[in-house]
């Protein structure tokens, strides 16, 4: 059984946020939900300032507090290490969001299509005829398939109002042998995905001879995302800007 993990090379990350956009397009998430998020930090005071970046997605923890607290088993960990949400079972209690120390869970506060790029009224007749009635205009049909041994609807976002979502490691792509969209898109190859149990996999080879660290290791969540270079974030770091999108 493989164990999927991701390495994030902070020496390579240039903070372009292409991964964030790729994730949105791939998973059809609403504008305010950033399953993949890249912090842009500033440290020190002018002119002695330094910038740094930190991509932060679900860490697919081995000891996932989110899965432990879910009252109905909608949040669960697969044997291959991917932590998923069954959007048909989630009751929208948001307990997982509070249990997760990383802030990676996003709730659909309204009908997903309403929060999808609010510059356009998707119900407008002209737009409806141009898009053939699909709302939003493009939706990857793979996202509505059932996956894994459990055969549950776990891929992609924007399924329904009142349920929680988060990064799925692009389970619908992984099942086809592809990398997650963020890793596939990163122009500097700062995100490396693969089976960490296989010594010949790209991630195992990449991490060999490195000293990776993990985010909030002290929380005991046993994350499956490994950071290379840079340093763990601290309270002295200031975010340069936060996302404008709201619901």
């Amino acid at each position, binding site marked *: 059984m493989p164990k999927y993990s991701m390495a994030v090379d902070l020496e390579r990350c240039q903070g372009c946020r292409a991964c964030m956009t790729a994730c949105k397009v791939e998973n059809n998430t609403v504008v305010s939900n950033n399953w993949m998020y890249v912090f842009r930090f500033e440290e020190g005071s002018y002119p002695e300032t330094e910038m740094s970046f930190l991509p932060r997605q679900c860490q697919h923890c081995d000891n996932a507090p989110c899965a432990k607290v879910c009252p*109905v088993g909608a949040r669960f960990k697969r044997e291959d290490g991917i932590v998923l949400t069954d959007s048909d079972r*989630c009751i929208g209690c948001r307990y997982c969001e*509070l249990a997760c120390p*990383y802030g990676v869970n996003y709730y659909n*506060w309204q009908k997903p299509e309403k929060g999808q790029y609010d510059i356009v009224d998707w119900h407008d007749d002209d737009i409806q005829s141009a898009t053939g009635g699909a709302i939003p205009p493009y939706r990857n049909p793979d996202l509505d398939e059932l996956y894994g041994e459990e055969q549950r609807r776990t891929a992609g976002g924007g399924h329904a109002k*009142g349920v929680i979502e988060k990064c799925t490691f692009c389970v619908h792509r992984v099942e086809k042998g592809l990398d997650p969209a963020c890793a596939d898109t990163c122009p500097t190859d700062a995100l490396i995905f693969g089976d960490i149990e296989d010594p010949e996999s790209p991630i195992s080879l990449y991490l060999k001879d490195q000293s990776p660290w993990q985010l909030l290791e002290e929380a005991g969540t046993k994350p499956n995302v490994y950071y290379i270079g840079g340093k763990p974030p*601290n309270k002295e770091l200031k*975010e340069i800007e936060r996302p404008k999108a709201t*619901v």
Partner: protein
Amino acid sequence: MAVETRPDVGLPQGVGRLTLKWKAFLLVALAVLGFGLFAYGYEQANGMSVTSLRSTGTMGGATWGLYVVMVEYFIGVSLAGIVIAAVSRVFRIVELRPIARIAELLTVASLMVGLLAVIIDLGQPLRGIKNMLLYARPQSAFFGTFTLVAGGVFLSALAYLFLGGRRDAAELAEIPSRLQWFHRLWASGYTDSVDERDRHRRVMFWLSVGIVPLIVIALSTEGLVFGVQVGRPGWFGSLQGPDFLVLAAASGLANLVVLSAIVRRALGDWNRIDAAVFKWLGRFLLVAASAALYFMVVELFTLLYATPSDERQLADALLTGTYAWIFWLSIGLMTLGLGLLIAQAASSNWRIGTLVVASVAISTAALAERYLTVIPSQTHATLLPYDTGSYFPNWVEFSVVAGLFAFGALLIGLFMKVFPIIPMRDHLIPTQDDGVEATNA
């Protein structure tokens, strides 16, 4: 003791008689409930985005807000009622006899409202009810809240209310009225034989003995919903359970005092709740409020010494920042309430008006404390360096919560019109005129 009915008015305690005052109460309560339903309907149609709730982290909000605060508050309030009813039976505190049914009713009503608030907070309320039945996981503290509080305490409280009222129901069933069918149903064949009384007394005794640990477990679990969270500074800790319990006792007793005072007034000539009842309640409240203030002071000192970390950030928000006004208000109100109680205890002069003021202060302080448990750890204590968030409930949330209060008040108000809220004769606490020896189980 004569059966407490008057030939000129039929049923006792104003049961079945809709006075002008009661109709006015009904109208106001229905209006508030109606507006609450409208607000909830609006929220359901448009999504919870019409509330002030937002995701934590990059959205900079609080994902659990006023609704969850009210869950904690109402379920806390339910504690005192049933415990007072149980304690008065187990320890035979005859003075508390007149409010035993009010106490049971307070538990049933606040549990119903509290559980309704849980459902209201869910993004998928109907699926929530279904999936909690199909897939509930005992490992989740949320499951504890649902099964223990809902199942155990709610059913026990209902059983209490039912058994405790059977003799009254049997007596009322003899009186011709439009409610006769209901009283017959409640009495369900009760004949008041010595054997029957004895059996009832035994069941109630064991129910009383069993219900106290059950409610302690249930309410501690409620505290653990927060206490087991490693990822949120301010929440993780073994004190959440006991803290929750103590504050629940204080707020529950305070609500019982206020409700008893209201019932006392509403009953007019029928009133049998005398000063002795309030003296007992005042003493219980004094103990509970002292313990609650003790926990608050311990929390304050811990905050003052918080090290420069996430805990410090939270401490600053509470002591001097965004939440300072709520924090100091809650400490001030709890101190005021306790001060009034101590003054009354010292002079042995328990005045109902002063006790009600103290109770309102203590209950409001408890509500503010609940708010401070739930909200600041979401907006000001993220472990990754997100910007601080903000949250304050908006009109939708306030209206829904007002609707919940109105629903609770309606439950109690309606009950008073179909059944005597003061036991006409409580056969479960033996007295001389019952002609039976006091027997325990």
